[in-house]
């Protein structure tokens, strides 16, 4: 039996290697279901899943919703405005109110970092973190690792390069914890304003020079660049950012021939990645979306079929 005893999926930092492997191996089997004519299996029949999004996200929510439906669960989308986090009904009230419907799984996205373990105390349901502030986005890291494993055959001993707004990125944090557990080395590359200097303590190397860092990379994860960061002076202009940190054909030439490029999406072409590289890099990035569905099915299956405490 594969290792699994988690009720919630909150943070990759609390996963061990075997647990990550369990999710990835399950995802391999779940991929096939989406290729059938009848894209549905009865594994979670009769289970109620709530998609609880305090922050907008069409992609992640759709992916979770489809995953739940393909496992035959009843899924309801509950989009709460984040204003309810600051006044009136507290989020804990929301969770308690929803508990009255006896959901089995809550999929939560919220803009407050590290807030989910507290919420878990107020519901009997399993919680899956669909992104909590700047903290973690575990299913994104799992699907990234899954995609890398498919492409590279292994997660061990790789040089993983994460490029972009690491400071504000839950995807970066989850990936740093995830890849490190397999003995891969993670380097984060961004302007110094967007890299917490403390990241060395959590096992990532820091680089401010993409031209240099790209040479050794086996996996390059490009993060989304937010133009708001320019307004708060994290970088002086998008132009200068692109000049230093975009993946251009020229830079990509310096990478290893077998290096792969991932992006959590949606991509700002010509900001993070030159659109002239579209043919080379887009197919794998699209595959991430497909793999994301399988990973989320695996995640829902694992927490949804846990034996209920008597």
């Amino acid at each position: 039996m594969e290792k699994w005893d988690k009720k919630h999926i909150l943070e990759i930092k609390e996963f061990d290697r075997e647990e990550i492997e369990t999710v990835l191996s399950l995802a391999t089997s779940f991929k096939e279901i989406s290729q059938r004519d009848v894209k549905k299996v009865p594994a979670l029949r009769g289970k109620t899943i709530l998609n609880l999004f305090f922050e907008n996200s069409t992609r992640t929510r759709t992916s979770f919703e489809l995953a739940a439906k393909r496992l035959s669960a009843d899924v309801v989308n509950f989009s709460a405005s984040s204003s309810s986090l600051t006044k009136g009904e507290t989020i804990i009230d929301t969770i308690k109110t929803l508990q009255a419907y006896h959901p089995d799984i809550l999929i939560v996205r919220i803009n407050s970092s590290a807030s989910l373990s507290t919420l878990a105390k107020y519901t009997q349901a399993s919680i899956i973190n669909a992104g909590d502030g700047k903290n973690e986005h575990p299913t994104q890291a799992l699907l990234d690792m899954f995609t890398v494993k498919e492409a590279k055959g292994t997660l061990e001993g790789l040089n993983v390069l994460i490029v972009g707004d690491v400071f504000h990125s839950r995807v970066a944090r989850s990936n740093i914890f995830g890849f490190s557990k397999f003995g891969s080395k993670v380097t984060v590359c961004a302007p110094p304003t967007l890299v917490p200097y403390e990241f060395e303590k959590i096992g990532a190397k820091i680089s401010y020079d993409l031209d240099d860092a790209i040479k050794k990379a086996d996996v390059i994860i490009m993060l989304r660049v937010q133009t708001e960061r320019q307004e708060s002076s994290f970088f002086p202009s998008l132009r200068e950012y692109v000049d230093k940190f975009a993946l251009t054909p020229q830079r990509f030439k310096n990478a290893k021939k077998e290096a792969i490029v991932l992006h959590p999406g949606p991509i700002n072409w010509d900001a993070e990645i030159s659109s002239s590289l579209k043919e080379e890099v887009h197919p794998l990035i699209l595959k991430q979306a497909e793999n994301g569905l399988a990973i989320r099915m695996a995640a829902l299956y694992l927490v949804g079929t846990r034996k209920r405490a008597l």
Partner: protein
Amino acid sequence: MTFSEEKIVLSSQDIKRILYRLSHQVLEKTPNLEKIVLLGIQTRGAHLACRIQKIIKEIEGSQLPLGVLDITLYRDDLTAIGPSPLVKETKINFDINGKVVVLIDDVLFTGRTIRAALDEIMDFGRPERVELLVLVDRGHRELPIRADFVGKNIPTAENESVEVRLQESDAKDEAVIARAE
């Protein structure tokens, strides 16, 4: 549960003979080879299906379509058994509509696995007929299910178990009865 002494009920030679006989029976029942597809239930049913495919090729010269089925997601006890069982691959690369599906497993016991397999098959299409082939029928059915092709009926007590071992997964071919202590 621990099991005490094991008794071998089928030897490697027995299994070989049985599989040849069963293959012939399948062909006898459906002479139109184009209609037959083989589906083995993970994991030992899949190994047996693979062997039957080879035997039929040997006899008739043509290779029947072969698929594997993992029924975990269709189990009726998914949330009761926990921790979540591993889900293996399901692979059916052909159309089953209008075909005669020969569903293959190693041991027929309560019938619940077969119920799950039938549900899963229906999600892939509408076969003309589904036939069940098992190496061993040990009785104790809990659902109204019977096999069309049985290798050997082995009457057992509730506290006994029948285990089929195959070269592909267990390094030898045999079937044993073991009694729970």
